[in-house]
């Protein structure tokens, strides 16, 4: 990721972006905790895991230059705590693409796996874009 070989118009339901891998190092977690004003508890905050997945979505979705994409909604399920230092793999696919008036809604599915291929998190993000 990003897969710049595809355009936004070519994104269709069922399309899967190439997976993105992140190492959730102690320095990453420390930077994240500072950004969100929180204290650590030995695990990676679940939303820090999601942040990686969402950032990879942002990089992956090919938007026309100058387009403002708005994160409209987010569903998440946390399945397993992720220890600091773990490596995760984020899988993102297009679930739906809906045109609604002057807006277009892109619904993306995300699944996050640990090194042992166990799913640690899954979810769905709705991104609103000008049509």
């Amino acid at each position, binding site marked *: 990721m990003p897969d710049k070989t595809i355009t936004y118009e070519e994104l269709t339901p069922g399309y899967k972006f190439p997976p993105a891998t992140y190492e959730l190092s102690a320095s*990453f977690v420390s*930077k*994240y905790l*500072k*950004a*969100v*004003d*929180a204290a650590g*508890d030995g*695990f990676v*905050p*679940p*939303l*820090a895991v*999601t*942040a*990686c997945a*969402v*950032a*990879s979505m*942002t*990089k992956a979705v090919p938007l026309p230059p100058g387009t*403002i*994409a*708005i*994160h*409209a*909604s*987010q*569903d*998440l*399920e*946390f*399945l*397993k*705590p992720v220890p600091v230092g773990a490596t995760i793999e984020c899988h993102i696919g297009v679930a739906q693409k809906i045109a609604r008036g002057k807006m277009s809604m892109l619904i993306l599915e995300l699944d996050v796996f640990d090194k042992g291929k166990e799913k640690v998190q899954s979810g769905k993000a709705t991104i609103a874009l000008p049509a």
Partner: protein
Amino acid sequence: MLTEIQEGKALNPVVRHITQEKINLYAEASGDFNPIHVDESFAAKTPLGGTIAHGMLNLAYVSEMMTSAFGQSWLSGGKLRAKFKEPARPGDTLTVSSKINCIEQRDNVSYANCGFECRNQKGEMIVAGEAIVKLSSARK
């Protein structure tokens, strides 16, 4: 952690002040440098009129509240559905609050259903949604 998990119980709220510095720190940590969050001159020319906090930064405060209340149960059995209603902007103070709406029993496991909301200092709804936590064992 909550000492009593019962219907109607309010969770301890989380209050956070949003600054451009925190938004920039979040962009660095997450790798999401969308200019609507970090480029003040770009953002000023958009219909939003200025930079906004990442939705996931606002949602992080919700997760922090849930982690404080439910600990490990949230990390390995939490679900949330959130709608981003309005953007949070630098200078805003956000208050995240929640209460346990009901406790459901399914297959001898209890689930706490919580409604949550995140409002700014003007009372405007920034994020609203629900969270469900799988508790360790059935309870009444």
